[in-house]
């Protein structure tokens, strides 16, 4: 673990030095990441402007949900963005090199590059949470604050886990671009809504089948005292971060298994 932290720090430094070679490009990239996420924020804002609230949740409550979802996404983007590169790694035969090195395949994928563009995601998540949390009536305790940090981290791991599973399928399917888009769209667009908006069946689907609930809806409901919106007993929600951690661990195992189906393009 210490070695991993050291490697990550080195990678961060290399990325920083690389980006500083092209400063204008770096700044434009951050603005780009901000714009990408801001469009979702505008979407929610316009909807709340026109309709006042969504599925019984007030504007500030929906913004808290949006902020938590964004924060989870920025954890995923900051630490695990490389999960989305697997198609390329398989297509180009870069994976050949991974197989020759005495280091975990997963870690090699994780460390292949570090793109500082992700700062844009972090900035917008912090700004939205900074705006929304003080405006929502939350009864703060230290335990609740710590739980929120854990829930955000676990949400990021969940999204990363899904992207890793999707990427692992490229060992068999070669092209999984549509699935990347599907995960990004579902998380980026529909993850910002209180999921009771999709009705009972939809809420169950997004909890048990496509676990979108764990990156925004459940943490926000617990924090805001809106357990009445959940379809399961409210106390279970406090355990929800375990789902993200569990999914991520399973995804790493799945990735390892699927990598056995790799066929080198021979380049």
């Amino acid at each position: 673990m210490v070695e991993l932290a050291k490697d990550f720090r080195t990678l961060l430094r290399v990325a920083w030095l690389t980006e500083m070679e092209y400063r204008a490009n770096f700044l434009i990239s951050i603005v780009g990441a901000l714009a990408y996420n801001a469009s979702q924020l505008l979407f929610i804002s316009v909807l709340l402007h026109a309709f006042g609230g969504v599925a019984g949740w007030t504007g500030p409550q929906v913004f808290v949900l949006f902020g938590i979802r964004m924060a989870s996404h920025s954890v995923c983007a900051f630490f695990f963005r490389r999960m989305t590169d697997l198609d390329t790694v398989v297509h180009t035969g870069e994976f050949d090199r991974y197989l020759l090195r005495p280091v975990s395949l997963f870690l090699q994928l994780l460390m292949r590059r570090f793109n500082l563009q992700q700062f844009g995601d972090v900035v917008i998540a912090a700004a939205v949470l900074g705006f929304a949390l003080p405006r929502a009536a939350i009864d703060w305790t230290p335990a609740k604050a710590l739980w929120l940090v854990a829930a955000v981290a676990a949400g990021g791991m969940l999204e990363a886990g899904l992207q890793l599973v999707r990427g692992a399928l490229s060992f068999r399917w070669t092209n999984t671009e549509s699935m990347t888009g599907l995960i990004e769209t579902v998380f980026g667009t529909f993850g910002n809504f209180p999921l009771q908006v999709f009705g009972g069946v939809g809420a169950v689907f997004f909890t048990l089948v496509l676990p979108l609930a764990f990156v925004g809806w459940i943490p926000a409901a617990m924090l805001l005292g809106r357990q009445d919106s959940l379809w399961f007993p409210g106390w279970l929600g406090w355990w929800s971060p375990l789902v993200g951690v569990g999914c991520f661990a399973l995804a790493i195992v799945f990735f390892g298994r699927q990598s056995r189906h790799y066929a080198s393009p021979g380049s």
Partner: protein
Amino acid sequence: MTAGARPSGARGVHDTVGRAWAMVRLGAANALVFRANVVVSMLSVALQTVLLVTVWRAVYSGRHSVAGVTGDRAVSYAVLGLVLGHLALPWRLSSLPERVREGTVATDIIRPVGVVGQSLLQSIGAAVGALPGVATALLLGALLGGLTMPATVSAAFGFMLTAALGWLIATLLNLMVSMVAFWTTDTRGPFYVYRAVASFASGALVPLWFMPDWLRPTLEALPFALQVFAPLQLWFSEQPLGGVGGVVLAQVGWLVVAALLTALVSWRALRTVVINGG
């Protein structure tokens, strides 16, 4: 008449059409070659259709009309907006930046069809490749009762004409932004800004009917509203810019601007390109 006996002018046209058709087929093949990807794409569109219909019905629950727009119209708009987005609006990174970075753009430059022409023709092919997803969205939207048909034939015709022109504007602008790759090492930043502005201002994310009064005129003055919002207004028998004629006129105007800018940018870009390696 044999090919050899054909007059040179006719043969020239024949060859040009043949090359263009080859590029369109290449674009379609790129979109359809990975069958699992096509199936997932259809499932993705199906899921998004169901979710959009559900969300819009839910936000309208208990309300008949918001900002003068009924729930049925908002749901139909969402389904059709998804169709246009899937079929026609290339707000995604084109392969051009990747080809510039890898140097394979050298092959594109020596082809008998210009780089701009190749990209446009391949975009037509990509739109053809998106048809399975379009059919899925329309079918599912209709099955869910989330699709209202145009009131008149002229409304349907106006929609189809302006949606096609809107697609052309979007494709040209997309190509122009992709050409940033000739000057910078990473095109994602500019492209994300472009995509965020385009998707929001076009009405693809949320109809411009719901925009605050201070914002809507600005958005309607940009070319993006002519790609999604204006064609869909015609579908719903609204008369933006005085009707079909006004929309087409505005679109042709923007097309001329976009074509000139694209020609200028590509002219400069092809004099900047440096091919490394080989």
